[in-house]
């Protein structure tokens, strides 16, 4: 599906090369220092996340080495609570695990939670908003009351309870996040679709007898897609923050060490006062990651809302 910028008319797909397409998307970052910084940070994290651990390709008998110098779960690769040194650039934990390795491995969890949760939340939110606004009437009433109710549910406590019920796994964490996170996208997309519904191109599509599904997904959706992307960026940020907070509270996936969980471990090990090298790196990483997404979101926002452009 095309993600061209908003145009008030219906669009046709163009046969541009993928590279050309990406380049045209990146144009909006031109002259936007914050957006460029955000993009740079995010790309670094993605690369680190992909190459965090070694890959073994069996039939080629080949192993691509991972970025993490040690197995993050391996105990006593160094002494207990060692401060940073050449062998362990970010020191070790109370179990003698390598902090740098944990940090690098944790990137992956953040990426998985951020991208999956955001995608699902925005997917649900966009559909709810689209259907609600397009059909109006009782459909709109019901869907919007449900959205209102979800707005009444406190995010983190709900996620805690749900994860406690379903068990601490990364899938359940994502489900808990998605069940709440779709609400803002739904409201915003609904408002946007309401305004598009009035436009001539929808009327003409109806006049030639296009089906509801076709009008919604082929005609209206491409026009609200930029807004969807903006909310996807925000959703990534909130999802990552939520995962970190859940893990910090001890509800993280015990099999997939995340940045939030690292800080939880510092707390439970009672090492927060002394082991600064164990606390600060994951905290800074969470902050940097979320920040990069917000910076990119700001750039997208200017694209979606041109009135903000003169900044």
């Amino acid at each position, binding site marked *: 599906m095309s993600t061209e910028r908003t145009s008030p008319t219906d669009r046709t797909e163009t046969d541009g090369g993928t590279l050309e397409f990406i380049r045209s998307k990146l144009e909006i970052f031109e002259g936007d220092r*914050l957006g460029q910084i955000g993009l740079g940070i995010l790309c670094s994290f993605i690369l680190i996340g992909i190459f965090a651990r070694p890959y073994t390709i069996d039939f080629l008998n080949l192993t691509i080495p991972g970025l993490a110098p040690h197995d993050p779960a391996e105990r006593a690769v160094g002494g207990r609570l060692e401060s940073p040194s050449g062998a362990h650039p970010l020191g070790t934990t109370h179990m003698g695990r390598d902090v740098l390795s944990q940090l690098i491995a944790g990137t992956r969890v953040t990426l998985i939670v951020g991208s999956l949760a955001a995608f699902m939340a925005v997917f649900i939110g966009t559909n709810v908003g689209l259907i609600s606004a397009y059909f109006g009437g009782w459909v709109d009433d019901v869907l919007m*009351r449900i959205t*209102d*109710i979800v*707005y*009444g*549910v*406190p*995010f*983190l*406590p*709900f996620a*805690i*309870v*749900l994860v*406690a*019920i379903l*068990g601490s796994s990364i899938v359940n964490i994502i489900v808990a996040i998605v069940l709440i996170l779709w609400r803002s996208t739904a409201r915003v997309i609904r408002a946007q679709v309401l305004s598009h519904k009035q436009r001539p191109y929808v009327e003409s599509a109806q006049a030639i007898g296009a089906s509801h599904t076709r009008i919604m997904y082929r005609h209206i959706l491409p026009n609200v897609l930029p807004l969807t992307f903006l909310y996807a960026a925000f959703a990534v*940020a909130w999802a990552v*923050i939520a995962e*970190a*907070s859940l893990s*910090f*509270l*001890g509800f993280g996936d015990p099999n997939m060490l995340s940045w*939030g969980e690292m*800080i939880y471990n510092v707390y439970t090990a009672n090492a*927060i*006062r002394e082991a*600064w090298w164990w*606390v600060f790196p994951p*905290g800074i990483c*969470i*902050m*940097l990651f*979320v*920040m990069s997404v*917000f*910076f990119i979101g*700001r750039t997208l926002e200017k694209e979606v809302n041109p*009135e*903000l452009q*003169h*900044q």
Partner: protein
Amino acid sequence: MGLRAYVVRRVLQLIVTFWAFFTILFVLFRMMPGDPTSMFIMDGMTPEQREQRIAELGLNEPLHVQYVEYARQLLRGDFGQSFIYRDPVIDIIAVRFMNTIVLMGTALLFAYLIGITFGAIMGWWRDSRFERGGIIVTLVARSSPEFWVGIVLLSVFVFWLGWFPSSGMRTTGGELGGNFAARYGSVDFLRHLFLPALTGAIAYLATPTLLMRSTMLDVLNADFIEIKKAEGLPERTVLFKHAARNSVLPLVTVMAIATGSAMGGSVVIETVFNWPGMGREMVNAVNNNDYPLAMAAFFLMGSVVIIMNFVADLAYVYLDPRVEYE
């Protein structure tokens, strides 16, 4: 539609929302894994005693009976009995609820006071270095989860500078007793309050700041701003009495959502600073399968959010004379 009809409709909506929320709550907690009675067995109860206890709690009834019974209890303000504390939940939670409200209320108050002023000035001086720097600072604050802000503040002001106590609400303990003035009316309390409240303020600063700034930019384009300047009114008057006053309206709606995130945030902040509030209690209760307590905490948090949404809608009608009652 008149104001009265609007309020009536909004109240009905409030009741429906409460009912739906209550249902979600009930379903969630009945799905909870772990035998809620395991605790009684560990205490050396005989199976007969255990059966009796379950019957007392009504846990052997069919679900719909339990649902009605629980609803009836809630309406009476009865949250049942805590499994761990063996005391009525209401007694445990009431004080902690107040502690949470005091902490998060202070945090939100500061977040909004600072955010509105900051955002207004950023919008007024658009394109200035102040504005650009302000945006970066706000985005960094927004990117930091509450626990991270808390840890940074702890490290700097407690571990390094030693200016503030690291945890709790009072040096002498006894945080849950005494009347309102005894609990919250001392310098010692304020010293304990400062860091957790600041953590919340920083974490929730971004939304009011950025929203204030962007609505300011809209409002500043309005004709009446030019007229007010032409009237020879001082800049300060135009900025605060006219531009900011008009920009504040959308913030009222967001205030309700902010309260929601503050309720969630309380869970984290109270954990970091060992604040004897409802959020921390809820985490403990969930970890210990103490349903009645966890449910009550969850219910109260949700209630605060739902009621704030309601209040925000009504406040908006009151503040903006143009509002049509839908």
